[in-house]
């Protein structure tokens, strides 16, 4: 049996309505910030329950433009964690600011109790990452931000439709940055991203920043960027976003089976699940003994398990200038050696999930 990590092929079982809409757009020529994009922005804002949503070039750009809209740049510091996808930190560096890392907790999320120690006079913002679709503890993070007058940019790239304490991820901080990359829960068929916000002021700034700073064709208020969600991709998004609840529920159901079955194994550590949070499982990540061997075993048996990610960002060559060392973030470093990601997408069958579970059990029978 094959258990693939990507589900794009299944998404094309009935592509005709989307293809038809794309062909109509290509015929019409409404390509740059066209009507379908505006429609998509409205729909997305509704899902996240924010006043505004702005379609941009990618999830990376969603974070970068959020920082720029908040006036964060050279000389400023932004707090985040080292066990995220590189784009979180790439966006901070691109803005000109310095990333400051704080270790994570057993949920692979920023540890709120370590944030205050990392705050300096230069700190301008916290960028909590709702990693893997796990919602960060926003109540605690927002309290710290208020106390120190910091901005909060939620890296929600992996967490569409997640909630914490009854509030949608991406609606709690100053902005939320989402990714629509083809492998995301709600995806388009290319790069794409969305920024959510409740602030009219931030929204107005973002509208300028993503489109060259142009107030109209001939007048330029600020120097900006070119980062627009392609209208053609908004067409795809408009079709797929209808299914956001269905997709999310299926992923949660799949993760529940894994949780139940794998918690029986002493070699597997399942992260704690907070009661008042909705995990949307963009990635299903557990910690496993003999991780590398398990990974090889699963791959050999047709299961596309992966590691997100084997080297934390503070230990990458690109981070050398920040001066971190091995041992600075013990939790993240330990997890990097033990974490493994299992396929959890909405198109998996019950049989496929059982096959993965059985393979893991079989592996640990061999490696006691």
């Amino acid at each position, binding site marked *: 049996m094959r258990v693939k990590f990507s589900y794009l092929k299944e998404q094309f079982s009935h592509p005709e309505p989307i293809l038809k809409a794309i062909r109509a757009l290509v015929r019409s*020529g409404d390509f740059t910030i066209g009507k379908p994009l505006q429609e998509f922005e409205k729909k997305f804002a509704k899902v996240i329950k924010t006043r505004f949503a702005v379609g941009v070039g*990618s999830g990376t750009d969603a974070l970068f433009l959020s920082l720029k809209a908040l006036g964060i740049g050279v000389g400023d510091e932004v707090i985040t964690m080292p066990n995220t996808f590189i784009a979180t930190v790439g966006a901070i*560096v691109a803005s000109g600011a310095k990333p400051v890392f704080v270790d994570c907790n057993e949920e692979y999320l920023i540890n709120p109790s370590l944030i205050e120690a990392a705050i300096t006079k230069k700190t301008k913002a916290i960028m909590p990452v709702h990693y893997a679709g796990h919602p960060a503890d926003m109540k605690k993070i927002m309290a710290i931000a208020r106390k120190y007058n910091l901005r909060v940019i939620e890296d929600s790239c992996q967490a569409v439709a997640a909630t914490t304490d009854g509030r949608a991820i991406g609606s709690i901080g100053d902005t939320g940055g989402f990714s629509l990359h083809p492998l995301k829960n709600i995806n388009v068929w290319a790069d794409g991203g969305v920024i959510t916000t409740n602030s009219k002021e931030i929204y107005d700034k973002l509208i300028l920043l993503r489109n060259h700073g142009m107030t109209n064709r001939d007048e330029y208020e600020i120097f900006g960027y070119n980062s627009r969600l392609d209208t053609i991709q908004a067409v795809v998004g408009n079709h797929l976003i209808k299914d956001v609840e269905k997709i999310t529920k299926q992923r949660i159901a799949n993760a529940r089976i894994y949780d139940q079955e794998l918690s029986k194994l002493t070699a597997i550590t399942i992260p704690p699940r907070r009661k008042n949070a909705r995990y949307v499982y963009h990635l299903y990540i557990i910690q496993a003994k003999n991780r590398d061997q398990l990974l090889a075993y699963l791959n050999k048996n047709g299961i596309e398990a992966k590691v997100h990610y084997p080297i934390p960002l503070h230990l990458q060559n690109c981070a050398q200038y920040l001066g971190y060392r091995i041992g600075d973030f013990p939790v993240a470093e330990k997890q990097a050696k033990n974490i493994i990601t299992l396929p959890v997408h909405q198109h998996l069958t019950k049989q496929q999930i059982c096959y993965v579970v059985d393979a893991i059990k079989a592996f640990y029978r061999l490696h006691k």
Partner: protein
Amino acid sequence: MKVPYVNLKLPDSTLRKEIFKALTKVFEKGDFILGQEVQKLEKQFAEYCGTKYAVGVNSGTDALFLAMKALRIGRGHEVITTPNTFLATASAIIAVGAKPVFVDVREDMNINPDLIEEKITKKTKAIIPVHLAGKPADMKPIMAIAKKHNLYVIEDAAQSVGAEYRSKKIGSFGIVNCFSLHPLKTLNASGDGGLITTNDDSIYRHLLEIRNIGLKNRSESDYWGHNSRLDSLQAAIVNVKLKYLNQWIQQRRENAAYYQKHLSDIVFCPQENNQEKSAYHLFVIQTPERDKLQSYLIKNDIETKIHYPVPIHLQACSKELGYAKGDFPVAEKQSQTILSLPIHQALNRSQLDYVIEKTLKFF
């Protein structure tokens, strides 16, 4: 009769069938990010320009931004360019953290090489000549100045795919060169897109990493990067169109020649000298009666544009750069006199005749 400035609609045609077929192929494979179509376009485009490499990125703006990033141009540096270009040339310089330093243009609207040297300081790192409207900048003196002062040349060829200077394609002169695939360009995608060309192996490899968030492979990064990848979907569309590009440019050149033949006596028309071949992305005439002519043509259903009515140094965004009115007299005067006539390849002879007839009638 109606003469639209652009025609983005795709009528039923072989081209449309080919594009729909190419799109379906990308969908079926789910090959969306840096897929085969991007690689194919990069190979074909490099061949077209006569360079070793081409790299597909998210926009023409990003092409300029990443080109400067790849050359390590940033804070504390100055980059020389013209003030009469599209804003993105200057904003890419600002985005890397450098300062745009403007130089006035010649009558042909491209940078005046005679005025470059006086603007060079210790901080100057590069010259970005813009091949505005499809017309090549005068690359020979520009390259000589760059060589003398040890500066990089980055061609802004966003409007000039297919143009030639001394029988060499534009986009093959600088160390890194930038193209746009925006829907309004001659070679266009159905959304944002851009291309970078270079002959330099190490710059090429660096560009591949920094457009892809700095990833050397799935787990390792030597540099922080950006997310600026040309979509496979857009590459598939451009791959189809690339086959038609020479034909389209030829059509634009014939349209231009027709305008020149009938209008040169009464308004300033763009001309070619014998060392260049213009791609006529735009056909920009110059006349002191510009505003009146534009309203007259609009009244007669002829759509025209102004590229661009306010030079960058006089925009609100440039306040901090400290320029004032009068700093670039040629560019400023042109901003009052320039008018872009419809020139695209889908115009028919009777539409051209109609534009000429109405223009002559106005004068």
